[in-house]
């Protein structure tokens, strides 16, 4: 069962000895020999995360070769932004990643502010921090359900997605939108907190914590969960740089890479936040690490709620946004999403339209080169669990 638990790093390299032929370090697979079957997992497949596909070649139950196929969600955001004014770019960016849209909003607003030299007022920064952290909670809750669902435990998904809905209600109170918030406009935020928001948020934190205790008992202490996730998809510390791994996937391999701590943005520098790392390297360690981060996020939300100033400006003075020209330059703004480093690279040429915007999603490398590397020599029943444990989000790959 725990095929790789002993000799963790040595046994990682895929055992290719069984295959008939190796050419240039790649197996040569003859589909005509009837030994192998080619299977497309996705895009219409309940096990894949969103609209993407895995082109698997299987030998019995075992996956021999994997290729990730993306592009089903390509909407050409970057092209669309080139022909939209800066303020018109803002409402479309949150569509880039659906479960956690706020990181996109923050990054693109911050990039515009960075290029044009606008300073965001204190209170707006606090509200941004609150919004970002709440979106992390929502995304983690959804992920937890997905991980449990991928190995056939539907109950956890039902509980957490149901709980996430109450967080979406909080978002709706705060921003007016359930899924897409469009809250952190350039120069500040759109609205102040409504009355009584803090009490309701604290109440919800308590309820979420109660649920998480249940989940810890039923999911993390479950022997079958352990037997399935331990030893699955091992990311060795050397692979972190090789494959550009970021976020919880890298932290579960012992790399200290949390942008909130290393390069504090908005108000994360003033919060009590600790780097959570683990040395487990496998899917179970990643799941546990994300669970710890979820608890930490809940803690951070309550810290932020305590620290938000009552009064203050929430909007910096902007020029008329409809003919807002941003001076020429280039910048890269990044933030820590639940999947890792999420960044926007923006190039301005001094006109009213951006020259180039590029969204760097963490799943870009996780879902393609890393997944193709890890999903070899595993059982076909583990592909879904592996994909979820890397927290892939297809829309941010192809944008």
């Amino acid at each position, binding site marked *: 069962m725990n095929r790789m638990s002993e000799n963790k790093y040595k046994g990682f390299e895929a055992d290719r000895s069984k295959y008939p032929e190796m050419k240039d370090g790649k197996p040569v697979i003859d589909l005509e020999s009837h030994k192998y079957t080619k299977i497309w997992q996705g*895009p*219409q*497949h*309940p096990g894949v995360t*969103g*609209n993407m596909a895995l082109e698997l070649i299987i030998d019995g139950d075992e996956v021999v070769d994997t290729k990730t196929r993306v*592009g*089903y*969600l*390509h*909407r*050409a955001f970057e*092209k*669309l932004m080139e*022909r939209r004014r800066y303020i018109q770019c803002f*409402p*479309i960016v949150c*569509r880039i990643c*659906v*479960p956690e849209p706020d990181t996109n909003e923050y990054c693109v607003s911050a990039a515009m502010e960075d290029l044009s030299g606008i300073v965001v007022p204190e209170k707006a920064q606090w509200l941004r921090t609150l919004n970002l952290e709440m979106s992390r909670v929502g995304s983690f809750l*959804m992920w937890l*359900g997905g991980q449990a669902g991928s190995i056939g435990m539907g109950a956890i*998904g*039902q*509980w957490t*997605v*149901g709980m*996430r*809905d109450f967080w*979406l209600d909080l978002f709706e109170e705060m921003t007016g939108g*359930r*899924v*897409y918030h469009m809250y952190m406009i350039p120069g500040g935020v759109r609205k102040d907190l409504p009355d009584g928001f803090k009490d309701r948020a604290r109440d919800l934190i308590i309820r979420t914590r109660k649920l998480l205790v249940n989940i810890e008992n039923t999911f993390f202490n479950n022997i079958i969960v352990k037997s399935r996730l331990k030893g699955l998809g091992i990311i060795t510390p050397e692979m972190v740089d090789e494959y550009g791994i970021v976020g919880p996937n890298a932290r579960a391999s012992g790399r200290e890479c949390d942008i909130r701590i290393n390069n504090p943005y908005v108000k994360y520098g003033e919060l009590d936040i600790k780097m959570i790392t683990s040395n487990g390297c496998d899917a179970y360690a990643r799941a546990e690490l994300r669970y710890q981060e979820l608890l930490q996020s809940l803690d951070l939300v309550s810290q932020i709620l305590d620290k938000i100033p009552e009064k203050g400006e929430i909007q910096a003075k902007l020029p008329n946004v409809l003919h807002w020209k941003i001076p020429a330059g280039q910048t890269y703004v990044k933030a820590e999403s639940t999947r890792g480093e999420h960044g926007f690279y923006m190039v301005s040429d001094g006109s009213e339209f951006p020259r180039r915007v590029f969204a760097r999603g963490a799943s870009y490398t996780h879902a393609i080169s890393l997944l193709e590397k890890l999903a070899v020599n595993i059982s076909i029943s583990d592909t879904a669990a592996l994909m979820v444990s890397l927290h892939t989000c297809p*829309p941010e790959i192809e944008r």
Partner: protein
Amino acid sequence: MKKKDINEIEKQMKLANEGLPEKERALFSDARPSSVAPLNKYLEGFLNWARSRSMWMLAFGTGCGATELRPLMTSRFDMSRFGIAPRPTPRQAAIFVVGGYASIKTIKRIVRSYEEMQGPKYVIALGSCTINGGMYYDSYYTINRLDYYIPVDIYIAGCMPRPEALIAGFNRLKEKIRAGECEGMNKYTDNFDWYKKNQKQIIKDWNMPDYNW
């Protein structure tokens, strides 16, 4: 940038799995689909009642609309109360929920999945982007009107539509099914050439069978 003339496509089109290599053609049916008339009034009424109470939805999250399907499936909104259940394979599903924008690459899969579904089948299109392109109206890779490629029974507007709106949409679909108004499949088979023409206009490398029945 040269636009393919529609008539030219029509002339070339013989609709006998021509996009496939010779070897694979034998594997797929080359029988043209034909429409199936409803049974007599009372029997069809009874079946329609059963269909409206047991709606099997294809679990294919084609776009961001799939995000709001998850709350709908789970404990907060619980669509299984209305007899809506996700089915993982198109052969068994009756409802296709197209979740938002469809890129060219996805519309190919949508068409194929839609044709693999066994009739009578219904299509719900979520979001503004399926109605007129929404905020991707000028994107080179997303379609603007879904009803030119597959027949649509219900549109649910919004970006994104809330779960309540989805429930309302499903209820409206129920009413339409019971009234016998949802004959999307027959519409598709009757105007098969027109739909295929539209599909082939955007799907440039047509390498799938023409008949997926």
